[in-house]
């Protein structure tokens, strides 16, 4: 007998919940430490079409604090001899620790809305976010996780490599298939550089998971 999977596209609303008391987002197994993703970042501008191959690895997730971090490796960067690896830290939009509004990194609320609204999965949330910044949204049962990733330092090259990490990424992660979409935002770079990543399985016919435990 076919069973219909109950699916809710729009997240529930909570009334009168103090964001400080809100629970962190529940864990998603594909967004855990050790998971690797691969894809591209489109860096095209008016002069030419260009995309860099990108690998991402999640190194730490702390849902309680809405925090995650990892590395990003850009493979065919024209001015670099080797792949360029950066370490980034992420803010998870959970209504507890972080909201959709960035409030820093030169991003205005208009910039935020312009970027978030490029994700189709943001559409059901947009109205509420425009009304109250999304304070009433309960994202804990929503199958997409919104984040901001900010690169913090170059891992394998010096700061004189001619590249910049001044901007940050608006990111949307799909809990279902582990795909990641993102848009790079830096007022001084080409707008809406799109990041598209999929999970990597190292030649396996399935998913593999490692873990560590910090004492």
């Amino acid at each position, binding site marked *: 007998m076919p069973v219909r999977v109950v699916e809710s596209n729009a997240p529930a609303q909570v009334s009168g919940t103090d964001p400080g008391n809100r629970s962190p987002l529940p864990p998603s197994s594909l967004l855990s430490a050790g998971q690797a993703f691969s894809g591209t970042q489109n860096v095209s501008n008016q002069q030419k079409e260009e995309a860099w191959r990108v690998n991402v690895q999640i190194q730490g997730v702390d849902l309680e604090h809405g925090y995650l*971090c990892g590395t990003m490796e850009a493979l065919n960067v024209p001015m670099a001899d080797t792949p360029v690896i950066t370490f980034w830290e992420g803010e998870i939009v959970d209504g507890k620790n972080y909201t959709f509004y960035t409030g820093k990194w030169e991003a205005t609320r208009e910039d935020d809305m312009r970027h978030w609204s490029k994700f189709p999965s943001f559409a059901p949330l947009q109205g509420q976010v425009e009304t109250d910044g999304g304070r009433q949204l309960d994202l804990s049962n929503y199958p997409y996780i919104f984040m901001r990733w900010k690169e913090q330092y170059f891992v394998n090259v010096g700061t004189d490599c001619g590249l910049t990490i001044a901007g940050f990424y608006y990111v949307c992660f799909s809990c279902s298939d582990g795909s990641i979409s993102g848009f790079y935002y830096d007022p001084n770079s080409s707008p809406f550089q799109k990041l598209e990543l999929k999970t990597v399985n190292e030649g396996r016919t*399935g998913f593999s998971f490692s873990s*560590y435990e910090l004492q």
Partner: protein
Amino acid sequence: MPTTTSSSSSAASSSGNRQADVFSRLASSDPEVKLKALREVKNQIIGNRTKKQSFLKLGAVPAIASALSECDNSSILVQSAAALGSFACGFEAGVQAVIDAGAFPRLLRLLTSSDEKVVDAGARSLRMIFQSNQAPKYDFLQEKNMEFLFSLLNSENENVSGLGASIIAHACGTTVEQQLLCDAGVLEKLVILLDGSLSQREACLESLATVLKSNPEAVSRFVGLEAGRYLSSVTELTKDRYPRTRLLSCLCLVVIYNTSPSYFLNMGTKSSLVTTLLELLNDPGQSGNEAALGLSSLIAEKEDLQKLAYEANAIKNIVDILKTGSELHPKRLQGLFLSLAELCSKLEDCRCSFLSLEVLDLLVNALRHKNADVRTAACICFKNAARSVKNLSAGRFTTDHVMLPLVQLLHDPSSAVQVAVLGALSNIVLDFSSPKSTFIEYGGIKQLIELSKSMDPNARCSALRALRNLMFLADNKRKELFYSDVKAQGFASLISDPEPTVQEQALALLRNLVDGCINSIEFVFDEDGLILDSVARQLRKAPQAQMAIQGMYVLTNVASGTELHKEAVMQQLFPQPQAESNNFMLKFLQSHESQLRSATVWTVINLISPSSPGALDRHVKLRNEGIIPQLKNMVNDACLDVKIRIRTVLSQSMSFGDN
């Protein structure tokens, strides 16, 4: 220069002669001579550790103790008691000598004297003795002792009532004793001393902390006295002009807070407690030493207080004290490192701020400190600072300079240091797939394997956690290096350890070993699949959830490999003959622990992955064993992650024609 040496030698000799002379006069039968000699000894040793030692060697303490028992001249009694008190003051060898000389019961007898001066001197002296851990245990369970204690507390003499409080602070160690004292009304007596003299107040604060520690009932009783008046008094004393009073009132509040946090809802009180303790850290004496431990105890496990302390610039203040260059008392060093450790335990901002102050040299020096408590505290500080993935990823801790002393501490004679350094190393070895590891170069893997066979389950658990972290995203070379030392038999023993926490870490380590490059799955098939057999055997034993999660992820990772790997997992899940079967997978899917359900569904996903030729047959088997029907019942699982994974399985099922 020869002349200087000669002169100093003659000065020392002359001083020694004088002491011998005074000592000989202590035995004089002339009361005046004896009294003068007692005064001289007392005056010479006050605050002078060297002279205390010299007189101790001469045998002055037994001589004074006999003066105490052999006469009833009140002046001699007062001076003898005072001299003995001076020997005991802050000098453990002196306390021991006084007790060995049998002076303790004689001093107690002085308290019954009709001469107020004699009573006072006896009480003062006994208070010095009760400052030491060597003081005799006082048995509150004996009725006459309790009566005597209350007679002390009721005394109008401030040293006598203070002595009562000191006895409580020294001897009350168990909940039963706390309860007994509370039932006898000791709290009501003690709080009266809060309004007394400086010494009474301080003794009272110390004993209050002892009676209230970890005893919510006693705290509730104390707070209820006159509707919280005395809690307010103690809070008020944190602003006293005397640092020692400020410290003792803070420590008393720390005890109350740690026992019953609900009495501290006011952020202002918390904040002022943190600020006062931080100020006291700068006190160069004993108060500063104790303030450091008090601060670490206050902020332990409390993120809100850690944040308050961080905002009050605690990290910079502490690091500045550590960087002063002067030799700090081991107790202070221990407290400062533990406070830093607590500050770095939860908040990433604190860790980054701490590490930005270039403190690694300080920590490395502390790892070599002669005091084991300091070494332990430094290891805990390393461990908590290394909870920063950002700094781990940047390789901040993996230099030779840091790694060598840490690895050396694995052989420390103190077991507390060993456990602490294992904790630090298990975090630090996490170097996120950097192929080079200083830890491995120093032979760390062999040492951890050795410790994983320790008699102490905590050491086994910590060693395996460190190995697990070391194998996280490791390349095959590193895995081979580890495996060649442990082998299948060794690994199987680790998985079958009697302690569930050790089993969990062993399985988590195995999970990492079979992750990554597909070839690494082969480890579990060594020696006829001994390791995989052990995993399944443990899973059939209805294990604890945390262990089962790791075990199921081992199976998930193996099932992500080739057709042979998937079939081997099926064989373990549904062994032949059927009689041996124990459908643990079905039980795990019904677990309350969502992570266990999730791990189990992942195994199913991998087994029926559409890219593998045997997927359909395995699906049929899983359906016949009740797994697929169970998953159909779970489509509305409370956990989003599980719900999503089940959807993946069911969609795959439908592609196999299963409706």
